C-alpha cells in the first residue's frame, strides 16, 4: 500500500533526516517528498510505499508518534486511498 506521511511543526535542523532514517530502518520507500516553511512552520509531505515494510503497521505508527514527540513535530500517516477518495472523482 501507498501512504501519505505529513510532518508539521516548528522549523529546526534535522527533521527530514530523523523521519527518513526511521522510514529507511523500516524499509519504507519514499516515492515523493516536498517541504516548505510557512510563517516559521515546517511542513513536509511524503508519499511512501509500504510494500516492503518490515514491521506491523501499528508499530510503525507508534514509532512515528514517538519520534514526533521526541523532536516536537506532529506526524500523521494516512492511506493514499483517503486522499484519492476525497479529492478525485
Amino acid at each position, binding site marked *: *500500500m501507498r501512504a501519505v506521511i505529513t510532518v508539521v511543526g516548528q522549523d529546526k535542523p534535522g527533521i527530514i533526516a530523523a523521519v527518513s532514517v526511521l522510514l529507511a530502518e523500516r524499509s519504507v520507500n519514499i516515492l515523493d517528498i*516536498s517541504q516548505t516553511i510557512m510563517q516559521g512552520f515546517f511542513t513536509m*509531505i511524503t508519499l511512501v510505499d509500504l510494500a516492503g515494510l518490515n514491521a506491523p503497521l501499528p508499530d510503525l505508527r507508534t514509532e512515528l508518534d514517538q519520534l514526533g514527540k521526541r523532536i516536537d513535530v506532529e506526524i*500523521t*500517516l494516512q492511506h493514499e486511498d*483517503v*486522499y484519492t477518495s*476525497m*479529492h478525485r472523482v
Partner: protein
Amino acid sequence: MIFTRLEIEQTLRMFREQNLDIRTITMGINLLDCADSDPMRLNERIYEKIVRSAAGLVETADEIGVELGVPIINKRISVTPVALVGGAAGAAADGAVRIAQTLERAATETGVDFLGGFSALVHKGVTPADIALIRAIPEGLAETTRVCASANVASSKSGINMDAVLLLAEAIKSAAARTSATGGSACSRLVVFANAPEDNPFMAGAFHGTGEPDVVVHVGVSGPGVVQSAVAEMAGGPAPLDAIAETVKRTAFRITRIGQLVLDRAAERLGVPAGIVDLSLAPTPAVGDSVARILEEMGLEIAGAPGSTAALALLNNAVKKGGMMASSHVGGLSGSFLPVSEDEGMAAAAEKGALTLEKLEAMTAICSVGLDMVALPGDTTVETIAGIMADEMAIGVMNHKTTAVRLIPVPGGTAGQWVEFGGLLGRAPIMPVSPYASAGFVRRGGIIPAPVTSYRN
C-alpha cells in the same frame, strides 16, 4: 506529488482540527432464524448467532482505522426487531426482559458499545409479542447498559397508531423512573419513530429490517466540524446562500467518500454485503462538532432564531446532494441530526431560551431525527408526552419522512435545570413544556389515518 499541497492540508485539518471521524460501523444481524418455542433455546440461539456473526467486527474495524489513518469511533450491532423473534416463545414481558439481558451479554462479548433492535413495529397494530416487548422496555433498559430499544408507531402508509403512542409514552415515563438516579438516562436508549428506516446505523434507533440480508454492514459518518469550518471561511464575506449551499455540498461529498471507502473495506474484510452509508452530520457534545454552530456560521445570532428552519433546510439539502454523489448506497437516516444534549450549540441555545420545544418541533420538519435527546421536566404527564410524540409523528407521516422522539422526562427535574448524561450523550437544560393538557385527545386511542398522498397504487 499526485495530490496538491492544498488537498493534503485540507484533509489533514479535517481529521486533526475539525473532528472528522467515522462515527460508527454497524453490523446488522438477522435473528429470525433464532426463533424457538423454548425460551432457553431462543436465548441461546440469539446469543450464538450474534457472537458468531460479529466475532471479528471490533478487531476488523480497528484494523481498518489503523490502516487508513481514519478514526473509527464506535462499533455497533443492530438486530431484527426482537418482538418478531421473541413471540415464538410466548408473549410475556419477563421473557422479553430476558432477551434484553441476552443481547447485553452478546454486546459485551463482541465488544460493541451499543446493540439496537429491542424493538417493535406497531405502526398499524400490536401483536401480543409487541405488547410484551413494549412493557419490557423500561426494565430491559434499566437492567442493561448497551441495549437500545425502539418502536415504529406511525408510517405514511398506515397513519399513526395512537394506542401505540400511549403505550410508548408510558414506557418512557417508566424507563425514566427506573433510572431516576441518573436523570432518567434509560430514555436515552429509547427512540419512537414514524417511518423508521430499516438500515439505520446510528443508535439508539438502529434495528435490522426484515428486508435486509442475513448479515450486513453499514457505516455512519460524522463531520459537523468540517462543514462548520468550511462555512466559517465564507462568514462575514458577501457570499450569498446558494454559494454557502455549494460549499456545504462539496464538503459533504468529501466526508461521505471517506464513509464509502470504509464501508467497502469493512464489507470485504468481514465477508458480508456492504449495506449503506448514512451521510447524516452526527454531532457530539465536543466543541467544534455541532450542527447548531453551522446555522450560526450562516449568520443567525443563535440556533432557534427566526430563519433557523430555513438555514437547516439549506444545510440538510446540500448535505444530501453532496453525499448522494459520493456514495452509491445512501441510506439510514441521512439528514441532519438535531439532538439537544449531544450538540453543545443546541444545548446552549436551549439554555438561553432561543431554542424552545416548539421551534425545535418546527425544525424537525426538515431534519431526520425529530425531537432528539430532549430533557423534559419530571412532572410531564404520560398524556403530554404522548401529545408531543403524536405531533412529531404527524410531521413525519404527512411529509413522508422519518421523524422520531427521544424524550427524557428527568425525574424530579424542573425547567432550566441542567442534566448530565455523560459521554457522547452530553448534557442539556430541561426544556419547559406547554402547561395545557392533551389527555382528552390522546386517550381516545385508535388510528389517525394515512394521508391521501400515500394512496398511489
